[in-house]
């Protein structure tokens, strides 16, 4: 039995020999393509390699055609290389644009600019409500978007060499970023919960406004520091995805999707704002309704 098997395999291997040689030829061509970026002096070696295997046609004709083909190939690969370089440049440019947006707080910021950094007027409220945290994307959401893109886009997933491991690493990153976000939230909450004690409005009438303003500004300074922190996390999250995890073409795909979602959300939020107009309440407000419960006790006193 075992001998028979061995024979069979021998047969199979001998049958597959021509295939192997074909593959070898293909490999040679592949190697050749990889070398295409090398200077044309290499041509001669490649030529001899190929001429051996090429069908016997007029030698000069084949030589000419091959030279043309080789030149064409060289130009094409050079163009591809330029395109790759320009893609890289474009990715860098786009990334820089985001970095600039995320580092606005590092520019000289006046006290009144803090509100604008937190809730930029250029973004409609719905856009900010759905996406923003301290003025722009949540860092964990950037990675969250990436993670959901991998799951939905097979091309992006397959291009990642270790999709499973990457997915795991991203989950860990999201987890870590959420902790950082929670720390900032905690600090922000401390400011919001104690502003009433730190800003002495109660004595604003007696003291010159200067001191009250100083207190306001000192609180806003703390808020500003948190905004800068948040922006750093945001920039790092985006850089991690674009520069560290993804290859060039996938990074481009991600940036297109990232920008696309922002644009879509911005657009429909704008439409929404136009449609809704400023928020209103009924003129005969609920105060009368609320008044019922306290009204009774009020009657007793008055």
């Amino acid at each position, binding site marked *: 039995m075992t001998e028979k098997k061995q024979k069979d395999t021998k047969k199979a291997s001998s049958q597959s020999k021509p295939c192997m040689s074909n593959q070898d030829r293909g490999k040679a061509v592949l190697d050749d393509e990889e070398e295409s970026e090398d200077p044309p002096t290499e041509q001669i070696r490649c030529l001899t390699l190929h001429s051996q295997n090429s069908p016997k046609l007029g030698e000069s004709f084949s030589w000419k055609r091959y030279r043309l083909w080789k030149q064409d190939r060289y130009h094409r690969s050079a163009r591809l290389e330029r395109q790759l370089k320009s893609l890289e440049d474009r990715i860098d440019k786009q990334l820089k644009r985001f970095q600039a947006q995320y580092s606005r707080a*590092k520019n*000289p*910021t*006046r*006290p*009144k600019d*803090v*509100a*604008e950094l937190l*809730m930029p*007027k250029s973004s409609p*409220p*719905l856009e*900010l*409500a*759905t*996406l923003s*945290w301290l003025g722009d994307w*949540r860092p964990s*959401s950037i990675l*969250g*978007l990436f*993670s*959901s*893109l991998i799951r*939905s886009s097979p091309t992006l997933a397959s291009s990642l060499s270790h999709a499973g491991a990457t997915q795991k690493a991203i989950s860990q990153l999201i987890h870590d970023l*959420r902790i950082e976000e929670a720390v900032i939230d905690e600090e922000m*909450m401390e*400011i*919001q919960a*104690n*502003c*009433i*004690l730190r*800003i002495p*409005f*109660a004595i*604003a009438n007696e003291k010159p406004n200067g001191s009250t*303003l100083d207190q*306001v500004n000192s*609180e*806003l300074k703390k808020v*500003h520091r948190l905004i800068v922190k948040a922006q750093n996390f945001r920039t790092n999250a985006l850089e991690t995805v674009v520069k560290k995890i993804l290859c060039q073409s996938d990074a481009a795909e991600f940036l297109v*999707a990232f920008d696309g*979602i922002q644009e*879509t959300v911005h657009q429909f939020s704008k439409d929404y704002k136009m449609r809704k107009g*400023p928020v*209103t*309440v*009924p*003129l005969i*407000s*609920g*105060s009368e309704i*609320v*008044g019922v419960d*306290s009204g009774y006790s*009020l009657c007793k*006193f*008055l």
Partner: protein
Amino acid sequence: MIRSLSRKKPTGRRRFRDYYAIWIDTLKTIHLPILRHHMSCATSTSSPNLLSAHVEILHHHFKSYYHNLDLAASTDVSQILIPVDHRNAMELPFLWLGDLHPYLFTNLLRSYLLQHDDSFSLQEPENEDEEYDYQEQQEQEIEEEDEDEIEVGESCEFLKKQWPLMNAWKIQSRKLTTRIDQIERGLRLMVPALMNRARRAQAGFVQKVGSGEVSPAAAAAEMEEEMVGIVMDANRLRKDVISEIVSVTTVYQAALFLEGLAQFLVGIRDGKLLQEFKSCKSTLN
């Protein structure tokens, strides 16, 4: 202003921005001065009952605001979460889910208790004022700021009896502290839960849009619904904490608490201060 409140427009609705401006103005020009009058009135015309009534009125004013905030949130929650229309640049950074942070209320209350603890042990006021009839004093209310001007008290016992407002934070302070502890414990559970809900709603939105499950508009509609719930729960929390504080404190404590709260809301919208704030050229970094 009351007239403008009762005047009915044919549309039946008004901009929340206008509502809030009127609400603040009513607080500033009517409720706060009346409350202060009853707190500081040296003549015996005012009684604890009257003060209590005004505390109730002011409390009601706050309740009606939160009721309207809920109504506005159910109309368009995004404009309540991002209240750039009705809040100024000085207020915005200090807001949490569209309004004051619930911790702010308990912190304000705690500050009165602490303040009193310090001032009580450090400086024992002396009574040099003899024109007061002790019987009258039992009923009168003194504004907290007057503490320095009117020097009173031969002993702690005397103060407890005679100066209910001034001594407001010593009375029942242990019972009150226990209750604040309870409220704070509750808040420490509920506030992070609300923050988590808000974060999860945002993460869910990005996930749905990113994976192409639903259109961004549909995802936003879903998220809006969740956000309305979050804002309403936050409002309920704020409203409940205020109500709880008013109910567990004495009338004098409640009066001081509401006065402090109202003064903060009015102060942060002060026109002159806001003007200075807007023209402030110094940078924060």
